[in-house]
């Protein structure tokens, strides 16, 4: 057994005597380390798994789709300078009929690489086997789709391939770096039940789609250091005659984009939250230790008289801070690691790839502990130095009375306004302005965390309401396999149970504005639409102009244009016409990049007649199943998105992930508020116990003296609450800015309920911790407290 030296025993007993404050400090540190461990290990795991999966499975960094090119074109592609590897393939849309699923599912079938080693975007086989070479009915199913539909090797599904109804046998389940996050066309959130990726042998797929000796998709890897824009440009040039719709890099690859955005957002959180906590934790340690050194002046003097050096004494107090901080680190690591696993499991339901970034636990726990040590040192150094510098003779005498003076507040007339008790309060706060300001800042931080978190949640809810109640009012969005004439609309409208049908024309385009170039989708909508509308963030519908286009705010900003400017729109399909359009307006839409025109404008751009690529339907709920069955069987229908299903998926995602975050942040905010108020009041009680005992002797009631003690904490809390609202609003705007991506922008929603609720939650924690200290005051021994100075 290790024999503890007397100073270490003193340390442990001091810690025990200060246990309330030790726990309060340790909890705040634990909050910081918990969030660090949680967010960092999730972040590291995601980033490392992503990098590893991309590397081992040779994720491409150049992608291009086209209508159809004969295989010899591949030779021209292979000669593009800067390419390290290149593969042609087939990638086709398919309508799927999954057993047990009433609605039609949509999918994409991608041909398997001819390279026996797996080629680019190598599949990670999870179950079963690869389809037999040449097979026309064996498929691999993406794990996301298989899990959502409970498909296992041996199961059969049916698909409408090239207009023919065909049975497909699932022989295996796999993942690909290309489809970690699978989002179907027109979907806002993944719906893995209704959208899935399948892989099939190249020969079989060629046969099914009459594409023998041809390809319609290219993936490639660039050489390190190669200029991607140059490679993309060359590829476009080669593919243009073959209906190329524009090559793009990983930045525009949906799965990569979502996963990378998620990792980037996570990294932001992993830096901000722990920093806030550890700063508050260091401040609390500073307060506790400074007070302890003050109380133990005579002990410090005695130790010095015995011959202990200043350094030994400084180390003694530093060790106490370390004990507290490491206790916090242990709690933080102990709770953070299981939270991280739970969070990664949750990620596993949206991002399908092996979490194989190695075990990050030891590294993260180590880094977290190091952060706790840094916080402890930062908090303890001033007090430790003070103890080290106390001259022994002086420190054995009691401290002289604190020097007060009437501050500037009083010269402004506060003096006349306040009774002596009020003046005590003001002067005590004014005597240590930094402590007061830091405490106020701490309370403000607690409030702001809640405000920000709730605003985010409200923002997401608002976004959903906006999307699903204002903009997207159809029940079903039907997407056609290729542009059709108006008869297709009549066919939908004539189906039993369809109440209303509204056509749309969607064109994949490239926008040119000066030197800027962006890929995007041009939505051609009906005039005065009833089902799908364009609306500003305030929810008001905006009429699409008869000519000219509307851009979303983010898109207009990134293109560097404003209303009245003109931009060039280059279609990526058909005859690839290019036209100049006037920006008729900018819409304040929270959904990222989008451009709207009237359907007539889209048809004019494409130099075609009255053509649509799909329709929005409002249907009679009783006829839903029948309509779904009919849509499933229509070869010209490439897919159908159900508004209700999307809404459900969205709800589920939010309730789970955001619900956890909200709860965690509420607990964190409470811990901060509790730690600050409890410590502040305990230190005030310790510093002024003598004063309060005097007041009690002079005839002040318990309530009156508790009021004086807690009045300071009330003032701190009172100042911190409104400041917290301001800080929370600022933090919300910062996070909105940080978290906005090309895909979507978080709307700023600040409700009175949020602001009041955040203040109330922190006030409750403050009142509870103040109550705990008032209880101690009630049980204070007056006679003993009066003798304390002797």
């Amino acid at each position, binding site marked *: 057994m290790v024999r503890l030296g007397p100073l270490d025993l003193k340390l442990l007993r001091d810690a025990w005597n200060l246990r309330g404050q030790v726990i309060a400090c340790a909890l705040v540190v634990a909050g910081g380390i918990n969030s660090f461990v949680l967010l960092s290990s999730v972040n590291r795991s995601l980033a490392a798994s992503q990098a590893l999966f991309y590397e081992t499975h040779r994720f491409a960094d150049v992608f291009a789709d086209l209508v159809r090119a004969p295989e010899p074109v591949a030779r021209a592609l292979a000669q593009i300078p800067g390419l390290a590897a290149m593969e042609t393939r087939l990638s086709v849309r398919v309508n799927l009929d999954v057993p047990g699923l009433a609605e039609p599912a949509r999918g994409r079938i991608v041909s398997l690489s001819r390279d026996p080693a797996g080629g680019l975007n190598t599949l990670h086989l999870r179950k079963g086997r690869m389809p037999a070479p040449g097979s026309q009915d064996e498929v691999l199913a993406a794990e996301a789709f298989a899990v959502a539909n409970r498909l296992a090797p041996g199961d059969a599904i049916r698909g409408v391939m090239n207009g023919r109804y065909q049975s497909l046998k699932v022989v295996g389940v796999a993942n690909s770096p290309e489809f970690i996050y699978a989002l179907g066309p027109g979907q806002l959130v993944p719906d893995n039940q209704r959208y899935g990726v399948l892989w099939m042998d190249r020969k079989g797929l060629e046969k099914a789609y009459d594409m023998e000796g041809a390809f319609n998709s290219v993936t490639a890897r660039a050489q390190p250091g190669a200029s991607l824009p140059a490679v993309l440009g060359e590829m476009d040039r080669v593919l243009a005659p073959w209906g190329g719709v524009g090559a793009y890099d990983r930045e525009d690859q949906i799965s990569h984009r979502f996963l990378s955005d998620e990792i980037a957002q996570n990294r932001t959180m992993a830096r901000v939250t722990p920093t806030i906590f550890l700063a508050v934790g260091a401040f609390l340690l500073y307060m506790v230790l400074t007070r302890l050194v003050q109380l133990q002046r005579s002990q410090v003097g005695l130790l010095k008289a015995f011959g202990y050096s200043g350094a030994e004494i400084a180390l003694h107090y530093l060790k106490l801070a370390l004990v507290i901080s490491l206790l916090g680190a242990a709690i933080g690591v102990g709770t953070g690691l299981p939270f991280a696993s739970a969070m990664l499991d949750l990620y596993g339901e949206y991002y399908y790839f092996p979490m194989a970034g190695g075990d990050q636990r030891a590294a993260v726990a180590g880094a977290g502990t190091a952060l706790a040590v840094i916080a402890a040192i930062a908090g303890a150094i001033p007090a430790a130095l003070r103890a080290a510098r106390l001259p022994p003779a002086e420190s054995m005498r009691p401290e002289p009375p604190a020097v007060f003076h009437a501050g500037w507040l009083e010269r402004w007339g506060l003096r006349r306004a306040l009774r*002596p008790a009020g003046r005590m309060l003001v002067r005590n706060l004014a005597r240590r302005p930094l402590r007061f300001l830091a405490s106020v800042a701490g309370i403000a931080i607690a409030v702001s965390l809640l405000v920000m978190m709730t605003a985010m949640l409200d923002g997401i809810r608002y976004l959903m309401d906006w999307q699903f109640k204002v903009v997207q009012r159809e029940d079903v969005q039907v997407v056609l396999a290729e542009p059709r004439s108006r008869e297709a609309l009549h066919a939908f409208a004539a189906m039993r149970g369809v109440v209303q049908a509204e056509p749309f024309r969607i064109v994949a385009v490239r926008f040119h504005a000066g030197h800027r170039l962006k890929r995007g989708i041009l939505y051609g909508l009906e005039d005065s639409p009833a089902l799908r509308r364009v609306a500003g963030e305030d929810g008001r519908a905006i009429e699409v102009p008869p000519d000219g286009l509307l851009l979303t705010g983010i898109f207009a900003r990134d293109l560097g244009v404003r209303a009245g400017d003109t931009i060039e729109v280059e279609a990526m399909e058909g005859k690839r016409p290019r036209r100049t359009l006037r920006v008729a307006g900018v819409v304040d839409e929270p959904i990222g990049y989008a451009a709207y025109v009237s359907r007539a404008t889209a048809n004019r751009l494409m130099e075609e007649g009255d053509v649509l690529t799909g329709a929005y339907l409002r249907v009679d709920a009783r006829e839903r199943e029948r309509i779904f069955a009919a849509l499933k069987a229509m070869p010209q229908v490439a897919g159908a998105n159900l508004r209700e299903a999307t809404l459900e998926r969205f709800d589920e995602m939010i309730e789970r992930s955001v619900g956890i975050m909200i709860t965690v942040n509420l607990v964190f905010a409470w811990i901060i508020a509790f730690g600050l108020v409890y410590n502040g009041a305990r230190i005030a009680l310790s510093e002024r116990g003598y004063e309060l005992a005097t007041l009690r002797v002079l005839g002040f009631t318990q309530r009156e003296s508790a009021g004086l003690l807690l009045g300071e904490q009330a003032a701190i809390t009172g100042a911190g609450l409104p400041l917290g609202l301001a800080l929370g609003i600022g933090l919300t705007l910062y996070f909105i800015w940080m978290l906005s991506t090309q895909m979507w922008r978080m709307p700023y929603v600040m409700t009175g309920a949020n602001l009041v609720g955040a203040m109330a939650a922190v006030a409750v924690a403050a009142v509870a911790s103040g109550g705990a200290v008032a209880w101690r005051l009630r049980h204070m021994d007056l006679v003993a407290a009066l003798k304390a100075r002797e």
Partner: protein
Amino acid sequence: MPASVFRMRDVSKVYRVGDLEVVALREVSLELHAGEFVVLLGPSGSGKSTLLNLLGGLDTPTSGEVDYLDHDLSAGGDEALTRFRREHVGFVFQFYNLIPSLTAAENVALVTDIARNPMDPHEALAIVGLSERAEHFPAQLSGGEQQRVAIARAIAKRPDVLLCDEPTGALDVETGRLVLEALDRVNRELGTITAVITHNASIAAMGNRVIRLSSGRIVDIAANATRLRASELSW
């Protein structure tokens, strides 16, 4: 013989310190009379402070009775004792116990704010000769001045009894004399019962009566035929 205001009958006080029982007072009986100046003498641990704390309603006896007029202090709960202190008692301590964040006048006002029939804080400071120092904070005052502020604070509520625990203990002779003069003046002019605890036997000559304690018992009560003024004392 003036009427008795405080009556202690067979009062004992036992403190429990860890596993030890410390008997601070053993069956003490005592009466204090209106307008009287009493000096309590005795070595450390003789029970003087315990006696004063019981008289002032800071503590309750383990057995026996303490009465102030018709109030039974031995039965009083915290609330009743607080009210008693608020309305009737002025305390003066060895270490002054001023609130460092309040000026002299404000320290006095702290008490006059909650008293029923207080004097003006400046009037109280004038009695102890500190009108000039009213706006000074404790850290700007000498020990003797601080103690006189404490006396002003104690008398400003016009208490019925002034209890002083070693009021000159931390002061030099000259300053101590000024403090004692202030106490003497209050007692003579306002007729406040004054009980002073001291180690200093020379102060005994100031009192109407001198009570000596030892080991928790009153061993002697002596009446002075004539009271000396504080200025006449020497030690």
